[in-house]
């Protein structure tokens, strides 16, 4: 890689009182790369994601993010104002439960348009145009633009959340179990869509999941976490097909094959 990494994480640590949330987590993420973080529940993957995105204060470490102008900034050292501004302009966050990521009381169009309005868009026609375009991208019909997310199915809500996150053209998207809670055929469709969008837009993404199949389809590289620490990392196929760490071996062999 000749290019500088988009995100550089060093020694990221988070304690919950005496207990360890995550300890000494470090990795680099390059533009256009999708990184998967896997591990059982309680392994610290969601903690890592929350610390990276600034939703949770870290106990130590550095998270360097490369801004649009090429300069590096330590996300953990930013003031809340600066961090929220950075998050609005450059980041997306896809929640497992679409309800958390959506405003359920306003229409689908307003949900997609809101990030644009937060960035200063003040032209109704243009905002609506962008909303229509992004609904089409995530395969939601134009006739649903004025409907409430409440009337959408689980899969549609998740796709709507995706549109809301991508409309601002973020450079980094955090995803927390993006396919959790959906049935398998809906999962497959969403994964298909995600894979297409990630490739088309050249998005960098960090996907936290306990579903190894999801990482196989989406992620270029994989981090395996256990008890708050990274126990193995490498290319996705390499980690899944030839796991070296005993825990990764256990994880891979625990997957059921129907």
């Amino acid at each position, binding site marked *: 890689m000749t290019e500088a990494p988009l995100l550089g994480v060093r020694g990221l640590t988070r304690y919950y009182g005496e207990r360890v949330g995550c300890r000494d987590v470090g990795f680099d993420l390059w533009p256009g790369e999708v990184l998967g973080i896997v591990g059982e529940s309680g392994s610290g993957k969601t903690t890592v994601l929350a610390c990276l995105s600034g939703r949770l204060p870290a106990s130590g470490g550095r998270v360097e993010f490369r801004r649009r102008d090429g300069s590096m900034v330590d996300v953990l050292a930013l003031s809340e104002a600066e961090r929220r501004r950075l998050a609005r302009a450059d980041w997306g966050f896809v929640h497992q439960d679409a309800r958390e990521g959506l405003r359920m009381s*306003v229409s689908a*169009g307003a949900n997609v348009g809101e990030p644009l309005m937060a960035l200063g868009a003040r032209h109704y026609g243009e905002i609506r145009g962008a909303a229509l375009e992004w609904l089409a991208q995530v395969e939601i019909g134009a006739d649903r633009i*004025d409907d409430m997310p409440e009337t959408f199915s689980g899969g549609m809500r998740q796709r709507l959340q995706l549109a809301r996150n991508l409309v601002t053209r973020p450079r980094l998207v955090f995803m927390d179990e993006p396919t959790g809670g959906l049935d398998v055929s809906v999962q497959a469709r969403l994964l298909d869509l995600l894979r297409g969008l990630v490739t088309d837009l050249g998005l960098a993404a960090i996907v936290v999941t306990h579903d190894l199949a999801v990482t196989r389809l989406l992620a270029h590289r994989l981090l395996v976490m256990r008890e708050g620490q990274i126990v193995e990392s490498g290319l996705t196929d390499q980690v899944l097909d030839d796991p070296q760490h005993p825990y990764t071996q256990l994880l891979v062999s625990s997957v059921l094959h129907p």
Partner: protein
Amino acid sequence: MTAYNFAFLDEQTKRMIRRAVLKAVAIPGYQVPFGSREMPLSYGWGTGGVQVTASVIGPDDVLKVIDQGADDTTNAVSLRQFFVRTTGVRTTTRTDEATLIQTRHRIPETALRAGQIVVLQVPIPEPLRWLEPRETETRTMHALEEYGVMWVRLYEDITRHGRVETAYDYPVVVNDRYLMRPSPIPKFDNPKLDRNPALLLFGAGREKRIYAVPPHTRVRSLDFVDHPFKVEAWEEPCALCGARAVFLDEIVVDDKGGRMFVCSDTDFCERRRAGEAPR
């Protein structure tokens, strides 16, 4: 009424409220918390406005009290009586004569002048409340000027009704910085807030907040570039005084569907009928 201090409130309370008012004037549109007192009237009847008025009123003031534009409604008459009994100041119904005007839901049609103080009664001061119930979060949003969500509300209105349906308490940005609720005045009155030569004070008693628009401050109503802010307009003039471009009330005059539109500002209407008012 010697048992009560001048203007009902004790001097320490008045000083506390004046400090809040000064701070509010220094930061236009910012909601300053204050220690709201129990007043001898119920919440929702103007406890915030009464406390602000009681703190700034002096023996030389000439007081006018308006409710929905009228000087003769229960609320206006009661509050005026209250201040007459507790201060002995001169009262008036004429906007041009008054030095201090407490008002609910209207700004007078007669142009205000420098030196006048208008006190508005506010039920809910927080413009972001409907979309964010947490006070800690709305304060952060104000601090960081994160007001994008307010446009979501306008977006929804235009999408559903073809235009912004908010007719009163229409949100404004003060001095290009703070988002503010102008209290439940009709949006017709919003343009009057902009660069008004009078001092506008807002008091919310139950919510314990005071805010202000100092004289000649820029006040902008929220809108979209392609859906600009518009005020209400009526096809007919006032049935009593013939005024146009004023806020009209619809009055039902019989039980056969008869109705008329008259000025909501009773003082303005009377002055015109007496042949002495402007416009």
